[in-house]
């Protein structure tokens, strides 16, 4: 049963090869592979939910040389989110790229990206994580430059170099850990790791490399142009999924591997950077002239919230309160995945229809596309953190944790960030209620609008009203009332 772990990595890889070999049929092959990948990812999540952690070593080789895969609650939760979001993006992309020459380049790269993404979630040793991160970065940069426009290529070239630097810094940390402890397996390392200077240096190198890839303020400079200039399905994938992969790794390394040496001081530093991201990202989103740039800066801000959890996690002893905080952090990451993917997909439809995405001129278009505007509104309410969205619960637990640990200074950051988010979301929505005459007919396109709408809906209803399964998959007790 644990052998099934290879499927979420293998299926998209084979699909990508097949899509490369059959460029004429790439859309069909790609859609089928996407469906199969999604099913395999969801079945792994189901297995973890029902039977607990899974682990396997490929090809019968032992741990030091063989390639180990493992899935626990954290990887299963992110795998499920990635499976659903990526499936919606695939269905959307089938229509978005229909009849365009970009389709034959999109599908192989997209399936490779998905394979690397699942690989990051399932890899059990630090070096395979490096390889998967590099694959993810390479395919993401190539996908982002798909339009061939100058801005897109320049932005993604920078993204690629930044990503390479991040991975190399991470790899240097891995080298130091191997020098000191002689293993790369995360589980074995966790048992051996102690508070030594070499472990602290490795932590600093690995986390700063990954923070660069996660676009943690002030290392976020590369994200807005790269995400805003990519084609809509790619923007959605980059913002919702790719950034989450390196965040997942930071969370895992910080709370598991480096638990003996991550004290409150280091965690507060991450929290401060997160606070900077929340305020600066939200402010720039409010000032953005273009819809996709707004969404990209909003990603910077939402990543910031995830890092606010770190100082609270560091100051709580193991127990229900800490489990709640951890699950709330994961819940916010999942909600952002759904909401931002839905937002970008809907923004892409608006851009296709209007020929531009300047917010000040969106009035008529927003009125003519009710389903798309509704998707933006739903996803936007999840970004703000309005009830009943998943980020409402996340922020609630975050603020409660700040009260309980006495770290009240995170409260004004959360409140201010939420207000700014409400301002930038309503700034877009107010265009839909402009004074333009009511259109005689509405624009509808089910195959692209439904994925966007479902994603936005999931971020609000699925994760908000039914947050319990997230706690269950992570192996914690009941969700907080």
């Amino acid at each position: 049963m644990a052998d099934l772990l290879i499927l979420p990595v293998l299926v998209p890889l084979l699909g990508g090869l097949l899509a490369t070999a059959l460029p004429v049929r790439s859309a069909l092959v790609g859609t089928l592979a996407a469906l199969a990948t999604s099913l395999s990812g969801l079945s792994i999540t189901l297995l973890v939910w029902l039977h607990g952690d899974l682990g396997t070593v490929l090809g019968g080789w032992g741990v030091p040389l063989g390639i180990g895969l493992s899935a626990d609650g954290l990887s299963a939760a992110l795998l499920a989110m990635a499976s659903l979001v990526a499936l919606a993006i695939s269905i959307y992309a089938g229509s978005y790229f229909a009849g365009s020459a970009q389709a034959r380049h999109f599908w192989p790269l997209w399936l490779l990206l998905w394979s690397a993404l699942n690989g990051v979630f399932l890899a059990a040793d630090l070096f395979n994580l490096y390889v998967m991160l590099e694959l993810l970065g390479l395919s993401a940069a190539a996908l982002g430059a798909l339009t061939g426009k100058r801005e897109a290529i320049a932005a993604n070239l920078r993204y690629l170099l930044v990503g390479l630097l991040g991975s190399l810094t991470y790899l240097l940390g891995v080298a130091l850990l191997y020098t000191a402890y002689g293993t790369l397996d995360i589980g074995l390392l966790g048992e051996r790791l102690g508070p030594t200077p070499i472990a602290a240096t490795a932590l600093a190198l690995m986390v700063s490399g990954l923070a660069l890839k996660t676009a943690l303020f002030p290392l976020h400079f590369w994200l807005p142009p790269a995400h805003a200039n990519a084609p809509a399905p790619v923007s959605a994938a980059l913002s919702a999924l790719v950034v989450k992969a390196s965040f997942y790794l930071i969370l895992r390394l910080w709370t598991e591997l480096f638990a003996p040496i991550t004290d409150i001081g280091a965690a507060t530093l991450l929290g401060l950077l997160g606070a900077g991201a929340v305020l600066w990202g939200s402010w720039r989103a409010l000032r953005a002239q273009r819809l996709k740039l707004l969404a990209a800066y909003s990603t910077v801000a939402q990543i910031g919230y995830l890092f606010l959890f770190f100082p609270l996690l560091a100051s709580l002893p193991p127990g229900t309160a800490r489990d709640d905080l951890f699950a709330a952090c994961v819940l916010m990451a999942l909600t952002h995945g759904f909401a931002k993917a839905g937002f970008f997909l809907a923004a892409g439809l608006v851009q296709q229809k209007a020929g531009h995405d300047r917010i000040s001129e969106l009035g008529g278009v927003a009125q003519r596309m009710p389903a798309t505007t509704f998707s933006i509104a739903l996803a936007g309410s999840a970004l703000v953190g309005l009830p009943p969205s998943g980020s409402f619960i996340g922020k609630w637990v975050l603020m409660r944790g700040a009260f309980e640990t006495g770290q009240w200074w995170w409260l004004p950051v959360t409140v201010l960030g939420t207000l700014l988010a409400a301002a930038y979301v309503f700034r877009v929505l107010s265009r839909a209620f402009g004074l333009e005459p009511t259109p005689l007919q509405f624009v509808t396109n089910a195959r692209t609008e439904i994925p966007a709408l479902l994603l936005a809906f999931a971020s609000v209803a699925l994760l908000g009203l039914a947050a319990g399964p997230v706690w269950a998959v992570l192996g914690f007790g009941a969700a907080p009332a």
Partner: protein
Amino acid sequence: MSAQFLYGGAGILLFALGLWSLLVHEALLRKLIAINIAGGGVFHVFIAIAYRGDTAPPDPVPHALVLTGIVVAVSATALVLALHRRLEQAEEPAADAEVLSESASASSAAPPPRTPAERTPGTPHPETPHG
């Protein structure tokens, strides 16, 4: 043992030099070379780790890691170069259009393909078509 430290220390020095060069230099090719030097530094560290004394054979795991790392570095370099070439191709028409029409706006939309007669005399013809 001192040789191992020398080699590992040189690796970290190379990484630092590459990092510094990547941050200060504007030109893309210099950045690319810088990142390759930084990567070479990390590989040096891995090779130094593998040494287990004159009598024992070296540890094979870091060697395998370096081999994989080199493959990744080569692919990444190739992708950077390919994107750089696309960037130059995307920039060329815009730069020529500026000379031809003397309009300062370097818009994102590529101008329509020009006939050879429209080319500025004296400029060499590009070997590949604009794409």
